[in-house]
């Protein structure tokens, strides 16, 4: 039987997603599926060099090729630069003077067919002066190293230094102090839907853009500035989005600039679709990071202090690196109590493709390091991994109280203890951990971890998001929002929230894709912000519409509005439910008899702005999240000690505190998917292999993504904490489990083999050599 939560009509129980039918029948249109009359095909000309000065670009031969309709280079953009924020605008639509990573775009072509566009790109002659490059942060930081950006000395992209409390004193007072270095890999986002866009100009100063963009108001603003248009003359219509995971589908790619420019030049719609090769060589990646972590604990395993030095490869351009480094540091004070904390972060420019946000953004690196090191310290102290976590876990604050960390992070709810207890119970942890299992050359082990993630992420600019609930005269409802569903299920929960508030069914609500001509502005789909913030907007908009209808009902029943209730499509007087009318009748009366009332509810989220202020990125204080989810995970692995191959078994349990599961199965898929696709994959499978800025595995055969055969049948347990800052108590679901999976697996590999793998991923070769070294060490001791 399906588990249900709370006493509600619509939410808190399983509901099919509102977009599932369109997706399962193939009707859902993604950007690459769009075709318009007279449409041309675009193609990008890319640099073969990772670092080179551009001396000349000759497009004449390409322009002469029959079938070619237009060619564009960076010069057409008149020096326009863009970036994640005002101060970080360091990237051109196409490189004009210098390329900074391999396959950076230098020109683009529009032609009557894909083949001709490709041929034309080959005819563009670019004269380069190759330059020496830097390909990891350690090369980049050397004195006299080549500069990626001439105006950025030392190749420093981001640098933070924060101190909270007195770590030196705390280390001196600690019973045990450990320092370890951990490494996280360069990772692809893993979406199958590559960047794609169709753009056209319905008038000389009006642009329509239909791209695979998870945050459609990013291109809305950037393109308006780029083409010098009033904002409202840019219309972004969002197709279905085939996953996002941060970065590339938030902000811009070459195709997002090329299509509008080529469409402007030709007066025809232009479509560009990236290949998976384009995606894997040029799309934004997860930052590879080197984390040095020093931690002090008492003899009882209580955390006294942590010092983290994080070094990251930011790649060629700044993109979202300032936020990445902030997130990497800020979470160190969650989910365990930490009284002293110091953080030094260095993010360097290199001649690699740019790094950016990715599911589990920032926290994934440092929480991995901290949670593995916690197991190491537990072992030295003779403590059980569950016990040391329970001793340090932050208590769930009493209702009405707020817990504040040493770096000014606030939370009203924290279910981490309950998560840990539930997972320990479900896996029969103590027994399981005691029984060492070896079958032939297979060794089994189980690992534990706990994690956190911010929900309702709020940045320093345009945080508000809004919703419009329009009640149509037949009783159906149009739900308009600028918030995007990229697969996480937010369209469904926002509709469900509106239905719950209005007292109607989910099937009564119709939601369309974002269209900036009609939908209210929204920052975008990132930082697990949509359900928390857009959900509040949905609630407020539905309440506004309901208030208008209730007034009409009150007149009809000759009672006060407070005496009217709407439930299950029935409108009635609370004290006398016999006096009632169907929902449709009330709406008809409101629309026709009042006379002509237009029922439109408006609502916007306030939490993102007003609750406890905003974070200060450079000082490392304050809240990036509106609230925080908590996760605990136990995972069993099977290690083939002869080959080093590690597999997850189905003995995998995650307990997740998402505040309140609005749609429980959707929370489960989010948690299972976050754990497997971006967590387990980072721990065991995925890594870009690089050589002097060249990606050596730019296809989905050599770049290993996790598949069904190895997928653990992870069981998800819900922990309900009803967060006061989330709609109906909701927080985030999925990014937490993305952060809990890598430490759980690495801890499990240690349990199985006695070998610590500190640099992810634990690919077979790495595990093989680690086991061999361990064996040799043991033999030497004998």
């Amino acid at each position, binding site marked *: 039987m399906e588990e249900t939560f709370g006493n509600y009509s619509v939410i808190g129980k399983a509901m099919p997603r509102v977009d599932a039918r369109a997706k399962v029948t193939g009707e859902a249109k993604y950007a690459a599926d769009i075709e318009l009359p007279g449409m041309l095909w675009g193609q990008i000309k890319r640099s073969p060099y990772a670092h080179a000065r551009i001396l000349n670009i000759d497009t004449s031969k390409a322009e002469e090729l029959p079938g070619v309709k237009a060619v564009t280079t960076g010069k057409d953009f008149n020096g326009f630069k863009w970036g994640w924020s005002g101060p970080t605008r360091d990237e051109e639509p196409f490189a004009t003077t210098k390329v900074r990573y391999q396959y950076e775009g230098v020109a683009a072509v529009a032609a009557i067919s894909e083949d001709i566009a490709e041929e034309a790109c080959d005819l563009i002659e670019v004269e380069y002066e190759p330059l020496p490059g830097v390909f990891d942060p350690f090369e980049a930081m050397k004195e006299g190293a080549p500069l990626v950006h001439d105006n950025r000395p030392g190749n420093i992209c981001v640098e933070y230094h924060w101190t909270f409390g007195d770590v030196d004193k705390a280390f001196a007072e600690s019973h045990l102090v450990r320092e370890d270095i951990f490494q996280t890999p360069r990772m692809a986002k893993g979406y199958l839907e590559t960047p794609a866009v169709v753009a056209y100009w319905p008038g000389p100063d009006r642009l329509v853009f239909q791209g695979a963009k998870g945050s459609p108001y990013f291109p809305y603003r950037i393109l308006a500035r780029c083409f010098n248009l009033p904002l409202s003359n840019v219309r972004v219509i969002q197709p279905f989005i085939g996953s996002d995971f941060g970065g590339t589908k938030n902000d811009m790619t070459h195709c997002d600039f090329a299509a509008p420019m080529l469409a402007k030049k030709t007066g025809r719609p232009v479509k560009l679709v990236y290949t998976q090769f384009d995606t894997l060589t040029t799309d934004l990646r997860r930052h590879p990071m080197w984390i040095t972590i020093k931690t002090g604990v008492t003899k009882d395993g209580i955390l006294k202090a942590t010092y983290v030095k994080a070094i990251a490869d930011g790649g060629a351009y700044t993109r979202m690196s300032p936020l990445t480094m902030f997130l990497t540091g800020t979470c160190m004070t969650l989910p365990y109590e930490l009284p002293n904390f110091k953080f030094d972060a260095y993010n360097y420019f290199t001649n690699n493709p740019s790094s950016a946000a990715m599911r589990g953004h920032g926290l994934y690196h440092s929480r991995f390091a901290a949670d593995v090191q916690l197991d190491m310290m537990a072992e030295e102290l003779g403590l059980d991994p569950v016990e040391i976590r329970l001793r340090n876990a932050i208590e769930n604050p009493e209702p009405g109280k707020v817990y504040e960390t040493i770096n000014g992070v606030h939370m009203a709810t924290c279910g981490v203890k309950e998560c840990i207890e539930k997972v320990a119970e479900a896996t029969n942890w103590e027994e399981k951990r005691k029984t060492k299992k070896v079958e032939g050359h297979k060794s089994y082990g189980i690992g534990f971890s706990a994690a956190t993630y911010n929900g309702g992420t709020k940045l320093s600019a345009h945080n508000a998001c809004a919703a419009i609930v329009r009640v149509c005269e037949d009783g159906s409802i149009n739900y308009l929002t600028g918030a995007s569903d990229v697969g996480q299920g937010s369209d469904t929960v926002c509709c469900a929230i509106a239905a719950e508030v209005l007292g109607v069914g989910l099937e009564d609500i119709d939601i369309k894709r974002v269209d900036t001509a009609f939908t209210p502005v929204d920052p975008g789909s990132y930082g697990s912000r949509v359900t928390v913030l857009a959900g509040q907007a949905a609630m407020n908009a539905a309440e506004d519409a309901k208030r208008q209808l209730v007034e009409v009902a009150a007149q009809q029943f000759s009672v006060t509005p407070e005496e009217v209730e709407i439930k299950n499509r029935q409108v009635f007087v609370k004290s006398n439910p016999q006096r009632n009318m169907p929902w449709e009748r009330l709406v008809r009366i409101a629309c026709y008899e009042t006379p002509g009332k237009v029922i439109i509810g408006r609502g916007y989220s306030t939490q993102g702005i007003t609750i406890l202020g905003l974070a200060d990125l450079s000082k490392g204080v304050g809240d990036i999240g509106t609230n925080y989810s908590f996760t605990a995970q136990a995972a069993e692995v099977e290690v083939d000690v002869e080959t080093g191959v590690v597999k997850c078994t189905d003995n995998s349990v995650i307990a997740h505190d998402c505040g309140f599961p609005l749609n429980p199965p959707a929370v489960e898929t989010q948690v299972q998917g976050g754990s497997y696709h971006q967590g387990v994959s980072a721990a065991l499978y995925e890594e870009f292999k690089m050589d002097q800025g060249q990606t050596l595995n730019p296809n989905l055969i050599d770049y290993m993504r996790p598949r069904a055969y190895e997928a653990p*049948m992870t069981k998800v347990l819900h922990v309900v904490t009803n967060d006061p800052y989330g709609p109906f108590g909701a927080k985030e679901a999925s990014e937490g489990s993305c952060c809990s999976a890598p430490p759980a697996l690495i801890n499990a590999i240690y349990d199985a083999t006695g070998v610590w793998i500190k640099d992810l991923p634990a690919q077979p070769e790495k595990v093989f050599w680690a086991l061999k070294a361990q064996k040799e060490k043991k033999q030497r001791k004998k």
Partner: protein
Amino acid sequence: MKGELKELKLTVNGKPCELKVKANTLLVELLRNELKLTGTKVGCLDSACGACTVNIDGKAVRSCSVLALQANGRKVTTIEGVADGDKLHPIQEAMVEYGAIECGFCTPGMVMSAKALLEENPSPTREEVREAIQGNLCADEGYVKYIEAIEIAAEKMRGGQ
């Protein structure tokens, strides 16, 4: 010759089609660009992701791995041909009801792999289900609910519903 058109006869979703195609046209290009059946997705064109999976004579085939001409005389079923009008196929129904679908980009390919499996093997073991969708990469949902939805669909189909 590079541009020469060849005759091609095949059945797509029960409808006979006669058309002329270039020899180098992939089946997925024919389906998406010529026949406008865009439910079949392109993820990689390397036969690695399975988003373009269709059924050819009942077998799951990645439509980027075969030329259109190789489908000559064959029966091709795409995601658009799976539901019976408004009535979803039990596999589709299970995926919708059970909450298996997230972004949906891999879903058409996943349905086609599952359909080929269940038509050949109505009572697959869990390992057989996993194996059948091993070639279908998903980016976000973890495969758990896909696997369970296919098992639920198999049960329903065996029950003659």
